[in-house]
């Protein structure tokens, strides 16, 4: 397996992550190829009949009581946002 430049740009698009003009796009192709070659070693392992393990402990998801614990912190949270207007998060126009 080896990544072409196009394949990396496609992945970057899927991750909504620009890799161009950020100073680190020169080495990224080599680096990703090396990493994927390394992780490819797992394909040699015999895992027939083995259940995938998503989580280290076999426990049942605990549910909390259905009561309101959080208070409305709109002002505090909006104060963290880079751009707001009229009590809302601001993004570039989505629908013309």
């Amino acid at each position, binding site marked *: 397996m080896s990544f072409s430049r196009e394949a990396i740009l496609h992945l970057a698009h899927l991750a909504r992550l*620009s890799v161009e003009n950020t100073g680190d796009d020169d080495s990224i192709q080599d680096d990703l190829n090396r990493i994927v070659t390394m992780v490819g070693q797992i394909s040699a392992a015999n895992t027939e009949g083995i259940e995938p393990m998503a989580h280290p402990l076999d426990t049942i998801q605990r549910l909390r009581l259905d009561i309101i614990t959080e208070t409305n912190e709109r002002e505090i949270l909006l104060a963290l946002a880079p751009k707001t207007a009229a009590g809302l998060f601001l993004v570039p126009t989505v629908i013309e």
Partner: protein
Amino acid sequence: MHTKTIAELLKILDKGECSSEELTKIYLARIQKLDKTLNSFITITEEFALSAARIADEKRRKEDKAPLLGVPIAHKDIFCTQGIKTSCGSKMLDNFISPYDATIVTKLKEAGTILLGKTNMDEFAMGSSNETSFYGPVHNPWDPALVAGGSSGGSAAAVAANLTPAATGTDTGGSIRQPAALCGLTGLKPTYGRVSRYGMIAFASSLDQAGPLAKTAEDCALLLQAMAGVDIKDSTSIDNPVPNYNTMLNNSLEGLKIGLPKEFFGEGLHPEVEMAVQNALKTLEKMGAKVFDIELPNTKLAIPTYYVIAPAECSSNLSRYDGVRFGYRCDNPQNLEDLYKRSRGEGFGPEVKRRILIGTYVLSAGYFDAYYVQAQKVRKLITTDFINAFSKVDVILGPTTPSPAFNIGEKTKDPVSMYLCDIYTISVNLAGLPALSMPGGFVQQCPIGIQLIGNYFEEGKLLNIAHQFQQLTDWHQKTPLTFKE
């Protein structure tokens, strides 16, 4: 005063030989004076610290019994601290002032600790040398040309240089144990779920765990006591009773069965590190422990497995950084997609980007089964190896790292060579087990660590063994010359 352990400081505070305010001032002055050469702190919380110390002194006069009352500590900058910058070592969160406290921050505050500041770390805890930090690398107090380890490198360097008696860290693949080893400290990664992850900025949610870095096992026991326990705000925290770790420290090691995995002693291990491990075994045998050879046959698959699972979880967790609700936002976005792409592209550093891209790849259509599902199956094999081993022995012992600290810049050009630093620590996270690194000697004037791996929830046993080891050895009492006075 600054070379004392927490246990010693508590006695001094109790006797009134020093106030918490005086103690806090000593450490703050040391940070101001000495951290320029180390870069171990991102934020110093002087005003918070002094006001909390005065309150602690007041409480002590009123005979408050908080277990760590008035003891200064530092938090890794991955833990949310209300009203204090929480950067996670990233440009993405350089402007982020957390609106709430992480559960362990609250718990350690309730236990009476005083926060001196937030320590440097690899960006989003992704690194083994603290070189991926937006704030620059941390230098090792034993030799500033060397790395302090990572990702909790700032915490380790700060404790080793006596800038704080102890610090918190997080460990996703070795990030507490490896820097503890390279800086000459005791560091504990608890069982997955032992400590709440609420307010700990997520990297790989099925692997991340918080724990202490300190001078001694006894101090780690005091800190874990305050940190551990179920938390309603973290549904993956485990509702098992927290034992009294302090009372377990002096248990006898007579008859303790130590397993030595042959896979931890192969190619790549520095011969002097191996010698230090053999010497540690002799010390433990003197105390009545018995050594058995064991096998962990899938060890060689741990790094490739980890570098599928951790990036997969990271790519999902880090999708929250979008330039909209908090954190970095690019200038003049042309449209929503441009806002996302450039905010993330400019806000994240190269290692974080590599992991997001790898994670996106292994989760994408056509590759999911071959990489992600296969990695989860190998994870099961690795875990089963440990379960089999623990049917024969009480604890597993080996080196924490293959070699002592390396030069800053030595491994930054090749990410895979950096990943191999975690060869002995990473399988523990995949299995969710507890493990501890304790000082075990010096190689080329640099400290190295001995790793103890325990069965699930056996932190007490690990602390017990390390504490007993530290009664017969003095590696943990060594201080780098420059930071002794």
